[in-house]
């Protein structure tokens, strides 16, 4: 292969046996630095895992010290069925001396990076489709699916070496337009299969100047274009963010100068307007102005795409001194406890409460449609969720995806609205 991408070098570093060269499509046996797991909702699944481990003769989990369980989906438990599943999973981890994050600690992807567990050059395995989010720190973060039992029993799993696509973004955003609008725009332009079978690297002057919060937003969207992993080359912004958080030494890998990308897509965002993804697909993207004025029943701010401090700050800037429309439920679910505390310190929480927003504990909230704001059939929501597939937040409901500022502006008006006029 003519030159390696940084992502390939990370894989090689973690592969057993360590290969001299790698080719896309080839499978490697990988030992991850971090094996993150959800305190899931299915009791049958944990019973099966216990039986499987017993049958395989595995007593000690080889990755025990690198296992991080999170209670972020359907948390705190909304039904007895889910509570039973979560209890069984918690018992499973506790019996093995593994600490479980509480249901208000936040979303896995946020905690793992905020607490310096996933770092530049790390490989993280996690059975959540938005794992590519963590590529924003320069980690190899591909969602785990198939390989869970291997990780529990063997401490390794198989990963296919990806082709890598480059998305170069330049330009400065106009007022009222945010990183999430850029992510939506690219999602629409490249489509749900735009990076199928590839990893995607984000670069360009826009990304160079982008905050970590919004780099996470961008990388999160990699999932919706079918990417296996997202990546931003660590720079001073990354290192500044990571340095005080890192719980162990880390290594920044660099792409070889001669590396050939699978494809290069270029975007200039300087004239971009606020965007929405209309029902029922995250790539059904259009300018918000085309659907402005459409009635909404609920607005949701949160998720691993847009539940960080900057997202809450953007919504608070729009809401300050205003009230949520009386016919709208505006639900705010911060992405992590760190976000809750920072937003409280900075006064954003007061703004939200004074506006009559419903502020919940930090977790996935309404995004996966398990609780915390399920929609009734026929209802319409504007949300900064990760995705808006049919039935996601309730059967026969509609979801428009938008930036946190657009969500807040719409919550004020009770219809889809641009944030611009609230930003004077």
């Amino acid at each position, binding site marked *: 292969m003519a030159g390696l991408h940084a992502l390939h070098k990370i894989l090689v570093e973690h592969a057993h046996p360590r290969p001299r060269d790698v080719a896309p499509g080839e499978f490697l046996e990988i030992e991850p630095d971090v094996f993150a797991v959800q305190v899931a909702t299915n009791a049958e699944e944990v019973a099966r895992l216990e039986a499987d481990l017993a049958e395989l003769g595995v007593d000690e989990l080889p990755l025990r010290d690198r296992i991080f369980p999170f209670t972020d989906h359907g948390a705190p438990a909304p039904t007895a069925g889910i509570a039973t599943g979560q209890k069984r999973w918690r018992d499973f981890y506790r019996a093995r001396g593994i600490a479980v994050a509480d249901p208000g600690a936040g979303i896995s992807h946020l905690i793992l990076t905020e607490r310096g567990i996933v770092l530049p050059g790390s490989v993280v395995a996690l059975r959540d489709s938005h794992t590519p989010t963590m590529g924003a720190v320069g980690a190899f973060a591909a969602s*785990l699916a*198939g390989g869970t039992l291997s990780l529990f029993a063997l401490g390794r799993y198989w990963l296919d070496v990806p082709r890598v696509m480059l998305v170069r973004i330049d330009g400065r955003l106009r007022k009222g337009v945010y990183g999430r609008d850029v992510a939506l725009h690219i999602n629409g332009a490249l489509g*749900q299969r735009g990076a199928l079978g590839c990893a995607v690297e984000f670069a360009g002057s826009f990304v160079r100047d982008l905050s970590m919060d919004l780099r996470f937003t961008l990388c999160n969207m990699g999932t919706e274009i*079918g990417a296996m992993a997202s990546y931003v080359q660590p720079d001073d912004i990354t290192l500044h963010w990571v340095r005080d958080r890192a719980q162990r030494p880390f290594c920044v890998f660099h792409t070889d100068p001669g590396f050939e990308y699978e494809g290069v897509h270029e975007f200039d965002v300087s004239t971009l307007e606020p965007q929405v993804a209309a029902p029922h697909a995250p790539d059904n993207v259009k300018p918000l102005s085309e659907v402005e004025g459409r009635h909404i029943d609920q607005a949701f701010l949160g998720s691993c795409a847009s539940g960080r401090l900057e997202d809450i700050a953007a919504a608070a800037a729009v809401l300050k001194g205003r009230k949520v429309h009386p016919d709208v439920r505006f639900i705010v679910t911060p992405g992590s406890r760190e976000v809750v505390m920072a937003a409280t310190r900075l006064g954003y929480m007061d703004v939200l409460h004074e506006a009559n927003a419903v502020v919940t504990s930090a977790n996935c909230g309404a995004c996966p449609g398990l609780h915390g704001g399920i929609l009734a059939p026929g209802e319409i929501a504007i949300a900064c969720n990760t995705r808006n597939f*049919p039935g996601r937040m309730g059967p026969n409901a509609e979801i428009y995806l938008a930036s946190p500022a657009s969500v807040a502006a719409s919550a004020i008006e009770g219809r889809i609205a641009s944030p611009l006029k609230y930003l004077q």
Partner: protein
Amino acid sequence: MKVTGAVWKFPQDDIDTDQIRRAVYSHLPASEQAKHCLESLDPGFAAQARPGDLIVGGRNFGCGSSRPAHVAVKALGIGAVLAESFGRLFFRNSISGGLLVVPCPGIVAFAERGDRLEVDTAAGEVRNVATGATLRFAPLASFLRDMVELGGEKAYLKARLARDRESQRR
């Protein structure tokens, strides 16, 4: 490995895992999940499907969440899913769960509902039993084929761990 069965066709692109099995059913036992398999696209499908039947899908079948939606498909007794292409997570989950999934470009045009197809994973070929027409596909990586043929990730690991322990003893 050869699998023969009758086709159920879901030709749409980008059918996500929550449409294959909604998240709200994820805490139910597999046999209960099976009753809701693909219900939003065809409410009668789960009740009428027979063990060994095949699903034919469009591009990016099983995109979206990593939730193990293949459990519902497997518990329904589906013999294989053939699709134009797959979401990566559904693909990996399925192989791990012992559900045969075959990326097979051209399958939507090739197969109609009710057709009996024979899938030969080693040869990389689908054959229409009635007409003899064939469609080629790139065979799966051999260790993935082994995993499905052994019945999934556990059986594969069992063989692997036995081999590792054997070589340690020597």
